[in-house]
């Protein structure tokens, strides 16, 4: 595999070396896939959306001017692609992104998820999946992608303050899920 910096890869693609785009795909596919799984809640949809996102990124790469980090720019494409797919499927985004309080109530099914989960991390990730897309997304961007709140606010197109509030609310929701079902001991 070529050991190129991100800047070198992008410039090479801009010069017409289409095959170098596979280096960017390899770098970002798993993280972007994680994001899309949180948004779409479906593996197949997430994979299809990931393909679309990379195609859009490739076609728009000539317009990328390094005003933001490539990851921020790309995740914004991923996020918007995810939202478009939700919209096309006539899912009501407003309903999905409504008050978090409606979403973190664990029922019998969730106990089943816990029983079937291989380990505590997997269980926690499944709890994250139960959050509304934007709340799940902010946790993935912050913890898995190590993005700053400033970068997250750019990806989600919200203010820095709102990004912070969203992160806090998402953490609160997970905390409440765990406490409500007394799973602290199991997760320790």
């Amino acid at each position, binding site marked *: 595999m070529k050991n190129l910096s991100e800047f070198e890869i992008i410039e090479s693609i801009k010069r017409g070396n*289409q095959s170098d785009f*596979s280096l960017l*795909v390899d770098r970002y596919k*798993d993280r972007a896939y994680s994001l899309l799984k949180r948004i779409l809640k479906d593996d197949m949809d997430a994979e299809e959306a990931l*393909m679309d996102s990379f195609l859009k990124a490739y076609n728009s790469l000539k317009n990328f001017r390094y005003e933001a980090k490539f990851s921020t720019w790309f995740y914004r494409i991923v996020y918007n692609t995810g939202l478009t797919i939700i919209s096309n499927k006539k899912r009501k985004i407003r309903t999905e992104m409504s008050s978090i309080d409606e979403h973190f109530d664990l029922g019998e099914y969730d106990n089943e998820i816990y029983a079937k989960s291989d380990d505590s*991390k997997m269980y926690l990730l499944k709890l994250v999946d139960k959050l509304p897309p934007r709340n799940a997304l902010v946790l993935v961007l912050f913890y*898995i992608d190590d993005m700053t709140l400033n970068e997250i606010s750019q990806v989600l197109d919200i203010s820095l303050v709102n990004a912070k509030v969203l992160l*806090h609310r998402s953490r609160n929701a997970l*905390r409440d899920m765990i*406490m409500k079902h007394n799973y602290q001991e199991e997760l320790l």
Partner: protein
Amino acid sequence: MKNEYDDMMNKYLDGELNQTEINELNDMISRDTELLEKLKAYKLVDKHLKDIEPDTTPADFTIRFMERLNTVSEKLESNKFFYSIITFFFISIVGSLVFLFTYFSEPTDEYNKTEYVIEKLNNYSVDIIGKINEYFVNFDVSVALVSASLICMLGLYFLYEFVKGHKRKVEALHN
């Protein structure tokens, strides 16, 4: 009040509390077991989320994507070729018509502009191609040129579609 401590505990996790605030939080959790349990749950969430690895895409994802990218790029190139042909003919036709109606000088009173241009064009053709112009003397040459261009353009379009369809069939056979 509880919400205020929720916010404070979130800031604690993000390392945004100063020493005074940390002492205040310590004081509160030492007196309130519910708050202590909350903080434990927060730390648990924070710790486990930090350890989570991203989901993995199917192993052949990059290969499949690059194949799709190549297909899309080839299609775009074909479209570019087609559009360039259309553009060329369109510009040629418009250019020819503009040339016909502007190259020659203004008509005299005896003729209207179209007849004047046709006559001039016929004379011009006689000068250039000699006796061949005899075939055109009785025709509206500009109409003939435009018709020929349109026929060429349509012919090329159908040829392009035929080649494209043939290529698709060959690819289907390979797959």
